[in-house]
């Protein structure tokens, strides 16, 4: 019963969806202010989701069954990530060994759901988007995992999120060292790609491939994808916060750190043009991958 409450309401699905939609509003508002506009009211993203629930759902001719199922896979796994992360922030002693690895796997599933959904929709533009998304996953996963290995090395090989938080509480944040700073920057850029934000949004570009992976989705499944994105906007910065800035996670500091990371992500989004997919793959394998390797070596030497 407790587990179900954790999963569905707090800190799982409902809570993370609400925070994620509000974070999406922060994103839109900051973007608007940077472009000297006024921007939407705070409830705009909720309205979008409710409206999508009210609309007709069209299944294109020849689409496979996975077209309707895959959005739910992404949402369910991401809600689980939100639950595990939230629990290990509230009560670091709670949790099981290896939940960090589970979280890493589950964080990958929304991208895979997007790929499966897009490629079962029988739309050529969607399959272009899916192939771009796949290449992007291949590009950013390696540096992301390497930078998390830095965290594991720094906390003496603990692979439990609560354990990492406890270690940081005792010995200071992981970011307070050279390797920590490098790993944090790399992970931040990878999160940018995970969220599908500019400059790494080639798979969803509105202008050239008309929404790419999402092109055939309407109504309910589109709403589910939007919700997944919103929860991603909540969980991904939260993961960065727990892994790198976990010294003091009392509510006020946690909210401040979360908003700080969010604003940095939004600023990166607004000050960069979109990269072509080959440029982003090359970028990820040249700079973040090499930098994170350097960070791993530095961490092994205790720097």
């Amino acid at each position, binding site marked *: 019963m407790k587990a179900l409450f954790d999963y569905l309401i707090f800190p799982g699905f409902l809570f993370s969806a609400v925070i994620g939609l509000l974070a999406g509003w922060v994103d839109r508002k900051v973007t608007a202010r940077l472009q000297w*506009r006024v921007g*939407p009211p705070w409830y705009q993203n909720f309205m979008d989701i*409710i*409206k999508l629930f009210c*609309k007709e*759902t069209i299944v294109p001719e020849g689409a496979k069954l996975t077209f309707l199922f895959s959005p739910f896979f992404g949402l369910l796994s991401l809600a689980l990530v939100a639950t595990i992360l939230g629990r290990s922030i509230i009560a670091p002693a709670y949790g099981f060994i290896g939940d960090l690895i589970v979280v890493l796997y589950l964080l990958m599933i929304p991208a895979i759901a997007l790929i499966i959904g897009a490629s079962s929709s029988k739309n050529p533009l969607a399959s272009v988007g899916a192939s771009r998304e796949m290449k992007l996953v291949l590009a950013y996963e390696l540096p992301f995992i390497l930078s998390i290995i830095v965290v594991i090395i720094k906390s003496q090989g603990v692979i439990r999120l609560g354990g990492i938080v406890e270690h940081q509480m005792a010995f200071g944040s992981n970011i307070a060292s050279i390797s920590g700073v490098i790993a944090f920057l790399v992970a931040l850029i990878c999160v940018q790609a995970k969220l599908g934000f500019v400059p790494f949004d080639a798979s969803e570009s509105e202008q050239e491939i008309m*929404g790419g992976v999402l092109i055939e*989705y*309407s109504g309910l499944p589109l709403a589910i994808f939007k919700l997944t994105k919103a929860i991603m906007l909540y969980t991904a910065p939260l993961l960065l916060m727990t892994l790198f800035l976990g010294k003091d996670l009392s509510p006020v500091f946690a909210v401040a750190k979360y908003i700080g990371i969010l604003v940095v992500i939004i600023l990166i989004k607004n000050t960069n043009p979109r990269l072509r997919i080959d440029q982003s793959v090359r970028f990820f394998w040249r700079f973040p991958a090499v930098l994170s390797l350097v960070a791993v070596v530095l961490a092994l030497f205790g720097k």
Partner: protein
Amino acid sequence: MNIKKTALTKSIWVFHISAGSCNNCDIEILDCLTPRFDLERFGIQLIGSARHADALLITGAMNRKSVPRMKKVYEQVPKPCVVVAVGTCACSQHMFRDSYNMIGPLDEILPVDLYIPGCPPKPEAMISGIVKLVTKIRKSK
């Protein structure tokens, strides 16, 4: 006023079809999204795929080439959706009414909910039209 109608009128995603316009109407539509008018305040967004659309903005004179394609796009839009005829060309064919290539004004082809005349209509005219349409939808039923 129920929540469904509120949501439908507070978050309008717009898909824009040019059925053979001179491109001036299209530029004026984009003007609505610039900092001066900023329609995102009301949740109005330009989107890339017809499957996400709530409103179709149709500009230009309906000709034999574009009408079959436009009908196809209209069938792809999830209902409920509204159709807006932007510009005198779409409303009444304008100066092309005697042309051999014209099929007719937009409302003989698709059910039109809102007419915005003008060549091209000002962004203010479009915003006032949208406000009228939204009030009408909210009052209905």
